């Protein structure tokens, strides 16, 4: 499906069509006629037919819809915006976040806060990072604005817990070091566009 289909937000002219219904009868005679016609045409039985057909499809056609959720999970879109996740640098394992505070600035729910400090290596170090999930609306702006692709949304949508805070501890949000190899780039908001190379104006280098 091309992107144009998504861009067309005019619902009225898509695949919808109006049912051609007869006008509702107003007179007693008209109503009687309607009952008579519907009874003779056995419209009620159509409903029964449809339901029993679906039942046979389900039982014998292998078209049962149920997913046994905790045991089976449906695949979610890679762009799904669930609980946040912090990525690491693949080479060093150091967290990518540079503490620039853009996510904090852009957050429309005002739920992100960063503490930074000057560390021994003369770098900006993120000493703490929190997201108040009570306020977060999962809009994805933080991931979109992040210049380092450090904060992204994960697919972790199972968010029942005793404390919301247990999802937003900086250490917990980071990819575990032993799973660094499995770390995948987030393709959603903020990701590098496929044709990014074409759009970049190259800066000359004097080396």
């Amino acid at each position, binding site marked *: 499906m091309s992107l144009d289909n998504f861009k067309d937000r005019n619902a009225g002219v898509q695949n919808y069509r109006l049912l051609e219904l007869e006008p509702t009868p107003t007179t007693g005679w008209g109503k009687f006629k309607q*009952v008579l016609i519907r009874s003779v045409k056995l419209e*009620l039985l159509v*409903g*029964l037919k*449809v*339901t*029993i057909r*679906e*039942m046979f*499809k*389900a*039982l014998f056609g292998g*078209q*049962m*819809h*149920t997913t*046994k959720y905790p045991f089976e999970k449906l695949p979610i879109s890679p762009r799904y915006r669930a609980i946040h996740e912090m990525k690491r640098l693949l080479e060093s394992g150091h967290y990518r976040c540079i503490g620039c505070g853009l996510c904090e600035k852009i957050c429309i729910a005002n739920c992100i806060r960063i503490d930074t400090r000057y560390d021994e290596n003369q770098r900006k170090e993120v000493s703490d990072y929190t997201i108040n999930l009570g306020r977060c609306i999962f809009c994805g702006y933080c991931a979109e604005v992040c210049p380092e692709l450090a904060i992204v949304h994960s697919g972790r949508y199972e968010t029942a817990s005793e404390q919301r805070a247990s999802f937003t501890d900086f250490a917990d949000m980071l990819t575990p070091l032993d799973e660094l190899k499995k770390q995948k780039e987030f393709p959603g908001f903020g990701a590098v566009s496929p044709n990014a190379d074409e759009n970049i104006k190259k800066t000359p280098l004097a080396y």
Partner: protein
Amino acid sequence: MSGFIIATVIKAIVVLAIISALAGFGTYIERKILAFIQRRLGPMHVGPYGILQIAADGIKLFTKEDFIPSGANRLIFKIAPLITAATAFIALAAVPLLPEFHLFGITVRPIVADLNIGLLFVIAMMGVGLYGPLLAGMAQENKWGIIGSARTAIQFLSYEVVTGLSLLAPIMLVGSLSLIDFNNYQAGGIANWIVWKQPLAFILFLISGFAETNRTPFDLLENEAEIIAGYATEYSGMRWGMFFIGEYANMITIGFLASLVFLGGFNPLWIIPGAIAIVLKVSFFFFLMLWVRSAWPHIRPDQLMWLCWKVLMPLAVINILITGLVA
């Protein structure tokens, strides 16, 4: 005489046990069937294929707090569910459930009381059943309950008329009120079934049967979309369970009545023995009720009344007239 009493008591207990178990099982069947029709699986996780869901529900119902609202009429509030359950089972007393069979050398007639006015007794008992919801709704001091009981009164009383009139025609044919006579009248194959002689009466009876058992599309008494739970709003736990069992027992009763009166009762069908035949027939009616529930929407109270008095009753009267002329 004492043997008769013992046999009757045993029969009563057996019928009570089996039917209430079936009523419980009915809930499972209903959930399963409705799920299948919607291409779902239904209960799956309690026991194999979720069969123990009934037990789980039972445990839940029994252990729930026995709650009576402070403004309720406590006595009536407590009695009302009993009326529903009791009348449902009492109605079954005059219904021959199976053909006669022999057990330990004794001929068992699987009917608790073979009354010569069996059909009348059943209908009368089901009519008395209206007191359950009626009193329950009025006793609980809840406006939804009141509306529920008002609907009970109009729906049950109105459709009682249609039931009676629709059954009158077959009664005229058979000339007896005993259900065993009905059964015997239809012995000898499908061709003898009353349904062929009285198709209109059959349809009218079915429709009014749905209304009498408070099933969709006529479940106005406790239509949760309009009146929360109607007469059962304040009920919970086992008291609410009583209404439930009563309703399912009534469904089974209607199934038996329809089978016995119109579809040849427990007469053997080709190679199928009579016992199995009637179970199949009753099962079909039970399934039909669920099927209809999944396919058709509720109707409005005014449509209900319009249907009863302006359509069904005149048709029933005309049917009786024609039957009278023909017979």
